[in-house]
């Protein structure tokens, strides 16, 4: 399933499109707000669900080659974070839903812990 399909099915807002959403298929998902846990647990191509919205999430996603970050509970990324996302071609998505809800919905769509 492509990121584009996930965005429409879960009604996510696109904050930054790092790479064309139609061409990227997440290989799995990971949820945590602790960056080092993400460093340990998220694998290449995963979508990462978090309510952190500050600058450092971009570096984490870029270093791990994640397919997208979904920021939950309406947390607002600041302009510096957005600029960094554009510079590093990191896809940033945004929702009012909770992490729990988004993870459940992703799992239903077949985005599981790994593939």
């Amino acid at each position: 399933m492509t990121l584009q399909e996930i965005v429409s099915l879960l009604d996510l807002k696109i904050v930054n499109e790092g790479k064309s959403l139609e061409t990227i298929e997440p290989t799995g998902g990971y949820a945590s707000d602790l960056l080092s846990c993400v460093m340990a647990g998220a694998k290449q191509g995963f979508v990462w669900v978090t309510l952190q919205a500050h600058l450092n999430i971009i570096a984490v996603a870029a270093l791990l080659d994640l397919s997208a970050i979904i920021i939950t509970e309406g947390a607002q990324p600041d302009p510096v974070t957005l600029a960094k996302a554009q510079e590093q071609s990191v896809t940033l998505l945004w929702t009012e839903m909770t992490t729990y809800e988004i993870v459940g919905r992703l799992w239903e769509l077949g985005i599981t812990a790994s593939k």
Partner: protein
Amino acid sequence: MDAISEQEAKGITRAEELAYQLKVSQAMTSEVKLVDPDMKMAEVLELLRLEHISGSPVVENGHLIGVISIEDLIRSMSLGELNSPVRNFMSPTVISVRSYDPLVKAIEAFMVQKVGRLPVLDETGKLVGIITKGDVTRGVLVALQRDIQEEEIRRYRASHLFEDIISDRTTLVLRYQIKAKDFNQGGTASSNIKRALLRLGANTQVARRCGIAIYEAEINLIIHTSYGGMIRVEIEPQAIIIIATDEGPGIEDINLALQPGFSTATEEIRELGFGAGMGLSNIMRCVDHLNLESTPGQGTRLEMKIFLLPEEILRQSATQE
């Protein structure tokens, strides 16, 4: 043009940047079909059809006097005036751009003046080309493509570094100064090192392992040190050695610090998502050898080594020597 703040400058995409860097002359069409003002509209119809163009400059005695476009042609057809001369239907030229203008000038004119094409003049006012929105898009795409090729060339050159320089032992040393408490720069050094390794021909797995290990070391220097520190990366064809040093405050109990989940980070730092106590265990997972020495009050030295497998060595053709 207003000066833009650094903040705004960071938000500018590469395509926008190119619109300022590229000149109109680099995107325009220079083989222009010229139209005489006394030509009939029916002839313009034929010209546009045969040349697959949507408009042409109108020139009289070597001077640009207007532009005739497909919209003007439709207007003449609807009035049944295909036998009228061009001068009755053309748009008299009020705006043009110069060949040495930045591309953004043409983009602004398209937006503000609602025109589809602009005549391009040189320093002396002579018509040298025409530019359409399609030309702008094509110009930017070609330049982006060139960016990609340049990255490939950089990668190609860097990947030959270890082959081209003959010595008994070649080491490339990269040094990065890390500032204490500067969270905004967190991940910058590790991202730069990862890119450098990829350019040197490291496979993505090796670059990722180094990236993660260096990220954690970098964040530790930012969170915990009094005066920041230094990351030194020694790259050899068969091994990558990373040394992170600082001048304090030092670690009280190294064994405790190495335990997953143990952290001395403040509540404030944890709220940012740091201080999970996983940094050093993440590093251990990514490197083949780790040595941590620390003296409270003096400083800390963290050495990490990654040994490359035969198929990962940063030198493809020199294995037989």
